[in-house]
């Protein structure tokens, strides 16, 4: 296995991009990444594209050759493959790109993630995104994705004494971080009272506990670490890339307040990189719902089970502490274009590790983590990235 590096990154603005099509945003992110990597497209071997639901969201399946074509690469007949794993599609694509370069079969690949959620009404987007949980045994009985996470929240509150205010604190944090990110869907700050007073979605979760439906795309260029300095002064090594899966339905998990797939993916990733959670300085974690962020922090090994609520609320992950979480604003504030999320997380961590994150730069960031979740935790992908010296 070869060492793999991120050579370039690109990302569109996230949000309600009504004037831009799926293919436009996909191409924008990919071309940015190619320019950033100072890579000629003649050197490319293939594309890996994370996308959750283009078939139902924009009535277009088979998007991988479409993006290849509009990227101007169809004449070269490169390989282009779409990868789907619900909300974790983007980081699954990153994993596939990593495998391709690590294996030695490909040298340079573009990994992209793109989703266009605002071409359908919100109710339809809720239905489509909820199909990343078990349709036959959850959705048919009235479950939506936020409702399932609300079940996790209620149980977490019951078992560990997590409070409604501690949940709300996650949204306050994310919006504070997002206010410094020019690509963020939301750049407004939120008060605790605003989050607590927002209308209910699935109790105890309200509107401001839930990430928005966003349009957006992100891309990275991967290549072998050994030749990375031809393309960049600050190559970022992909120190670990791990995928773990679990039962599709929440009802079939051993314990709903633990995402065992997160623990498994994180454990393997730290083993692969010979590192521990204490080494991580900056992390982009799954916070599609405020409860998801708390459960994620616990299952990734950053805090003890049941302690994320109080430890998050005391501000230790909001900058200045050993670990800063979601400097991009996370899914809650930067936005949630499902299939693009995992790639955007990697883009943010690369910018942090290069020292290019401007107003939101985490000082001393040397090792970063991304954590991407599909459905209620049936697919989880964890990456560790570090500055190569």
């Amino acid at each position: 296995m070869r060492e793999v590096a991120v050579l370039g990154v690109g990302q569109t603005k996230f949000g309600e991009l009504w004037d831009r099509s799926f293919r436009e945003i996909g191409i924008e992110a990919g071309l940015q990444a190619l320019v950033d990597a100072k890579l000629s497209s003649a050197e490319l071997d293939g594309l890996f594209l994370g996308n959750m639901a283009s078939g139902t969201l924009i009535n277009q399946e088979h998007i991988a050759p479409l993006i290849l074509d509009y990227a101007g690469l169809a004449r070269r007949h490169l390989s282009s493959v779409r990868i789907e794993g619900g909300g974790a599609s983007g980081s699954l694509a990153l994993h596939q790109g990593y495998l391709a370069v690590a294996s030695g079969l490909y040298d340079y690949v573009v990994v992209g993630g793109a989703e266009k959620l605002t071409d359908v009404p919100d109710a339809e987007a809720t239905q489509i995104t909820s199909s990343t949980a078990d349709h036959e045994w959850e959705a048919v009985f009235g479950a939506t994705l936020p409702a399932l996470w609300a079940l996790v929240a209620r149980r977490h509150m019951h078992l560990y004494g997590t409070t409604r205010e501690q949940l709300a604190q996650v949204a306050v944090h994310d919006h504070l971080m997002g206010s410094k990110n020019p690509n963020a869907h939301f750049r407004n700050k939120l008060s605790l009272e605003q989050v607590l007073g927002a209308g209910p979605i699935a109790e105890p979760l309200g509107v401001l506990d839930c990430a928005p439906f966003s349009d957006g795309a992100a891309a990275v260029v991967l290549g072998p670490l050994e030749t990375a300095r031809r393309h960049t002064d600050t190559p970022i090594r992909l120190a670990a890339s791990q995928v773990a899966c679990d039962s599709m339905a929440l009802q079939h998990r051993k314990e709903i307040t633990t995402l065992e797939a997160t623990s498994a993916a994180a454990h393997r990733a730290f083993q692969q990189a010979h590192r521990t959670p204490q080494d991580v300085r900056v992390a982009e974690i799954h916070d599609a719902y405020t409860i998801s962020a708390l459960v994620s922090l616990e299952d990734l090994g950053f805090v003890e089970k049941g302690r994320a609520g109080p430890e998050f609320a005391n501000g230790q992950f909001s900058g200045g502490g050993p670990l800063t979480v979601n400097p991009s604003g996370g899914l809650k504030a930067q936005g949630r274009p499902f299939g693009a999320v995992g790639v955007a997380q990697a883009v943010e961590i690369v910018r942090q590790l290069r020292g290019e994150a401007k107003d939101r730069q985490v000082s001393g960031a040397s090792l970063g983590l991304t954590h991407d979740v599909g459905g209620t935790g049936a697919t989880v992908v964890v990456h560790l990235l570090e500055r190569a010296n």
Partner: protein
Amino acid sequence: MSIARFWRETPRRYNLGGSKCSTCATVYFPPRAVCPECTSHRQSIEKMIPFQLSGEGEVLSYTVVHEPAEGFEMQVPYVLALVQTREGPVLTGQVVDISPEEVRIGLKVHATFRKLREEGKAGVIHYGYKFAPTEEPESHPAPRGPAAVARTDELPARDRAPA
């Protein structure tokens, strides 16, 4: 959704038909072809036997849903719960015949046959299990919330769930 897609699940959705591993005796709902618990995983193939759940259980967690799943628009707000059944499997379903504020973790419930949702004016009407309390709620003796009664009355007779 096609009629066949729902119809083929009726033994499970109407009668709680699950399966049991004849090696380790773990019960599953919906039924499975292979036992995930069994140490001799491969040996459980073709050894899973039909098993019917009693429908008795208790609330493991719950939420009051305000932004509904498709086809549930007429029912908001509704209580969705994970129910830990007596035999082991956990089921996802609505809790009815109780006002949302009286539902709590640990509430004893039993499965009851109800209308789940309908696919528009001309589509299929789906039936299956929901859960009703088996003990009197602590605060109010009235078993039905006023909102639920009003909603049922508003529906034309043909759309009402069977009792």
